[in-house]
């Protein structure tokens, strides 16, 4: 899947809050405080439709809280946001999902005491048997059940979980649970998939296949917004990168250039004011966290230079 060119994404000069040509999600003035702490304070941000957007930022930047707010799992102090042109502020989480915006969680929520296939079937929509009275009359929902089971099977096969279909979800490995959670979210055929750290804790052998799955989603016309720490991953699959720090969107841009944005370097370094940046080891430590070859190179080059 080729990357979406920048000029097809933006409709203006690249800066935080830049307008997009075809935004699927538009956020305005969303603020969330916990006591004295402002966890999220986003003036304006737009998520481009049909592209893969990475949301990055140091720990505690407010990425998860931002996800929670947008998906109705938390309520902001103020702010509004539109999804596919419809207001989503104040809409409860389950309705947000029904409108085509689904999410996964940073801490995987596999339903452990249920079978893998039942996890999947739970993601299906329009199942009349989920009504308590119809549930008593299987002939009213068996047909739909057969249809969604077929869809579940093919998704499981795609995610290489079909052999585990009848196992309890609790018996899966961490990476497999991430895959299951993602596959389950796809059961409803969403428009926007929001993944909170989908690669965290996934064994490296699975990472590549996860990346392919994310690109697959784009190929099928879905929009992806994902939180990620690994810059290699971001460089590899993201069309667009949004950088958050201390609750704000501090930078936006294509993955090739955004990491050299001074605001981004500030954001990451700012999170390390207690690290001694005067020493090379301190700088390397920060660079490690960013996992950015770019910066690591810069620091090492500088060191070599200084050493001469």
């Amino acid at each position, binding site marked *: 899947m080729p990357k979406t060119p920048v000029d097809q994404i933006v409709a203006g000069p690249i800066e935080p809050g830049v307008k997009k040509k075809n935004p699927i999600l538009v956020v305005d003035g969303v603020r969330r405080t916990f006591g004295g702490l402002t966890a999220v304070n986003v003036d304006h941000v737009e998520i481009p439709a049909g592209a893969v957007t990475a949301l990055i930022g140091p720990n505690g930047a407010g990425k998860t809280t931002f996800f929670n707010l947008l998906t109705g799992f938390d309520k902001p102090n103020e702010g509004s946001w539109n999804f596919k042109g419809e207001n989503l502020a104040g809409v409860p*989480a389950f309705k947000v999902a*029904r409108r085509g915006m689904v999410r996964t969680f940073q801490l995987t929520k*596999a*339903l452990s005491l249920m079978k893998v296939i*039942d996890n999947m079937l739970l993601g299906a929509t329009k199942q009349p048997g989920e009504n308590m009275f119809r*549930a008593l009359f299987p002939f009213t929902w068996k047909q739909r*059940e057969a249809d969604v089971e077929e869809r579940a099977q093919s998704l499981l096969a795609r995610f290489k979980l079909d052999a585990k279909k009848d196992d309890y979800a609790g018996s899966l490995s961490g990476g497999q649970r991430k895959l299951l959670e993602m596959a389950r979210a796809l059961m409803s055929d969403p428009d926007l998939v929001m993944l909170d750290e989908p690669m965290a804790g996934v064994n490296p052998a699975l990472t590549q296949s996860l990346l392919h799955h994310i690109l697959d989603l784009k190929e099928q016309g879905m929009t992806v917004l994902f939180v990620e720490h690994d810059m290699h991953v971001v460089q590899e699959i993201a069309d667009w990168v949004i950088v958050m720090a201390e609750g704000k969107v501090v930078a936006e841009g294509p993955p090739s250039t955004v990491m050299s944005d001074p605001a981004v370097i500030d954001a990451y370094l700012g999170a390390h004011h207690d690290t001694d940046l005067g020493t090379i080891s301190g700088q390397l430590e920060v660079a490690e966290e960013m996992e950015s070859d770019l910066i690591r190179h810069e620091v090492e080059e500088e060191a070599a230079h200084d050493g001469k």
Partner: protein
Amino acid sequence: MDFNFIWLSLGEIASPTTAAYALATIGLVVHFGFTGLLNFGQAGFMAVGGYAFAIATLKFDAPLPMAVLATILASALFALILGIPTLRLRADYLSIVTIAASEIIRLSVKTSELTDITGGATGLNGAAKTFNAINPFPKGNYGFGVLTYTADQLWVRVVGWTLVALACLVVFLLVRSPWGRVVKGIREDEDAVRSLGKNVFSYKMQALIFGGVLGGLAGMLFILPRSLQPDNYGTQLTFFLYTIMLLGGATTVFGPVIGSMIFWVTLSLSDGLLALGINSGILPITSVQQGPVRFIIVGVALALLVVFRPQGILGNKKEVFFSA
């Protein structure tokens, strides 16, 4: 020596009380086992159902179908009142509110201001009159030996166990349906289910009402062969129901039936055995201590069960709650 108690104990298997406890426990399984709702006030639901039935019958001269309807509506309303403020909150709020509400019911009906309606501390007598009036069995004795029943005793057994069978059937159909899948998902992680587009609050409310109505009907069944006594609905009743549920298996449909039978047979057998031991001077306890000691035996049996078969007698090892 008199070994009749063995027969009497076996008679507990089919007694209406066993059926009532089984029915109330099926409600608890819907709450706790399948939906993960911590209802510590099932005794309150039984009280509400029992009082609704008795008051409708005795104070308003309601015909039987109306009294049954009153039982169902009152327990559904009780569930609604408890559920609306708590089901959006963390799971523990429901448990606190249900245990408090069931005690409030028990203490309120005893107040002298309500004696005209509730019968006060002495309760209500004769609520089974409309029920026994439609008894299709001709007068006479049924059964054999010590297990001989009057026509009314037979009638309440037949109806009681029919109710239990119906409840089992409905729960069986529900837990194997997509509805059952959603509530089991809620038991596991309600946020995950919410993220998949399900109205979690509505499902929890449905489960609370359904299990509560089963509790209410159990309360009605419980008073058909006896008078209505407010102190029968203390918190210990709820904990007996939990004992039965864990005995039979918290995530099973038929576990409550097996659990209730074992519970009552064990109580009755140990009672008989203890009496035998005391009368023949083998056991160094008095007959006053006999009552509490039976519960110690049941408690020890439950502790052993949780250690050796934590999923309950019918439960599936993989769905056990008490795993490390």
